């Protein structure tokens, strides 16, 4: 059932793109074949903290390998949605399913803070990401490879405290990637970085996502980041999905292009108009 649903959706999606972007279609097709991502099905998801109902019924299907950005005002429930998907909070009502049997290391989260162990060298910090395989003989090799993927192979024996903010976040990314996750959830991972570092991190995120084909869910307050990276942008308002926007631009995307700017503007105006209602 899950598979059927996934193909069906992907097909319509492809058809819709085919009309104006044959190149994107080819690329999509190719990625879909090699994707390791898991599809996500969310039905009637609700979550409250005390009297405060944060999520008021979320229905959402994310096809395997899609890059979804979730934007919204602070306190709209976007982070809670992400934490529920990552299994960090208990679900009050509804369901989240991944269309397959998932192992803990299939789903990884990256936070705004790098959360590295200050007393472990960079390489051992990445090895933490292997979870139970941490003690296996090829742990060093696998962690080293993940570090190389984020461009920090030469920092493997450093303490985290000597790294810059962006480098720490790249180590955190390597730690998340080392177990080859099938769903990667980002909770404002670039929020604490300066503008230039943020742009290079965005490129890195896009590259590893294209290489590995996991399903990516990015919570961000930065709409330009969302349209630059994502296939699809969800606007959450008062615990519900208010808008669901596809970003059909070909990749690699040209930063600051008229098309992206127009999209960003329209999403921003929706966010702001939602603000006016309250």
């Amino acid at each position, binding site marked *: 059932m899950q598979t059927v649903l996934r193909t069906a959706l992907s097909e319509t999606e492809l058809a819709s793109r085919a009309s104006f972007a044959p190149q994107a279609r080819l690329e999509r097709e190719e990625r879909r074949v090699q994707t390791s991502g898991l599809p996500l099905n969310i039905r009637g998801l609700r979550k409250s903290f005390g009297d405060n109902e944060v999520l008021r019924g979320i229905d959402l299907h994310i096809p395997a390998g899609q890059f979804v950005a979730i934007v919204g005002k602070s306190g709209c429930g976007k982070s809670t949605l992400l934490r529920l998907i*990552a299994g*960090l909070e208990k679900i009050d009502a509804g369901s989240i399913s991944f269309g397959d049997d998932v192992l*803990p*290391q299939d789903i*990884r*989260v990256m*936070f705004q*803070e790098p*959360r590295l*162990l*200050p*007393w*472990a060298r960079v390489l051992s910090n990445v090895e*933490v*990401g292997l*979870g*139970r395989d941490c003690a296996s003989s090829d742990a060093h090799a696998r962690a080293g490879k993940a570090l190389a993927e984020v461009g920090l192979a*030469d*920092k493997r024996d*450093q*303490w985290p*405290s*000597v790294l810059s903010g962006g480098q720490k976040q790249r180590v955190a990314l390597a*730690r998340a990637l080392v177990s080859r996750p099938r769903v990667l959830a980002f909770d404002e991972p670039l929020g604490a970085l300066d503008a230039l570092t943020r742009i290079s991190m965005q490129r890195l995120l896009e590259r590893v996502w294209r290489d590995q084909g996991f399903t990516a869910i990015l919570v961000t307050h930065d709409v330009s980041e969302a349209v630059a990276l994502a296939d699809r942008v969800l606007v959450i308002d008062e615990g519900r999905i208010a808008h669901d926007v596809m970003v059909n631009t070909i990749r690699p995307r040209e930063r600051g292009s008229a098309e992206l700017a127009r999209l960003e503007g329209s999403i921003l105006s929706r966010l702001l108009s939602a603000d006016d209602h309250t």
Partner: protein
Amino acid sequence: MSLVDRVFLPRKIRLPRVEGLVQWIVPLAIVVVWQVASVTGFVPVRVLPAPSDVALAGWKLLLSGELIRNIWVSFWRASIGFLIGGSIGFAFGLANGLSQLSAKLTDTTLQMVRNVPHLALIPLVILWFGIDESAKLFLVALGVFFPIYLNTLHGIRTVDPQLIEMGRIYGMTDGELFRRVIFPGALPSIFVGIRFALGIMWLTLIVAETIAASSGLGYMAMQAREFMLIDVVVLSILIYALLGKLADTASRVLERLMLSWHPAYWKR
């Protein structure tokens, strides 16, 4: 990497040569002034003997073997008492830091006991143990227990909850979580406890040995007082100062080895 080397290397080289000597300038100057004051008669010898006299007394006691024996006895009492009290304090700190139930059961009691000055127990301890070894060990252990207990507990409770959540997400078992996240996170605080405890350890031992003992440095000082041997009294006090410094240095070295990840330990 090159930046780090450039910033830290010159300091590392300068550290043992210059700073190692600098800290001894003041103690050395005090000894010199003291010697001059004694020789010129500014300070009467009956009040404070000259450092040379103290050194001479030390030399005599060293030859007779009495000094080594007494230092050894005191050192042994201090270490064993520290180990016993420290381990129990550490164990309670761990238990109460990790388990709510354990904390609820014992923390209030321990806080009440903590507010009793442990030296106030000396009369009771003498009644219980006489002037036996166990009396001194008990007092030292009791004195050392609280700083280690409190700082271990504090260290564990203040481990970054975000790191603990991270450990759980990455599938660490309770044991791994403790070994890789909680214990290393609590270690800086535990070391603070150890250094406090070392101070209390010597203080307790001096008092216990002066009041109820038949060997050890405190006993040596009290005996010397009986015979008006003021140079030996001063000698004992100086040895306590040296032993205290030694213990502190040992804990610092250990700290630097085990907390080498911590930026605060790079510059010293």
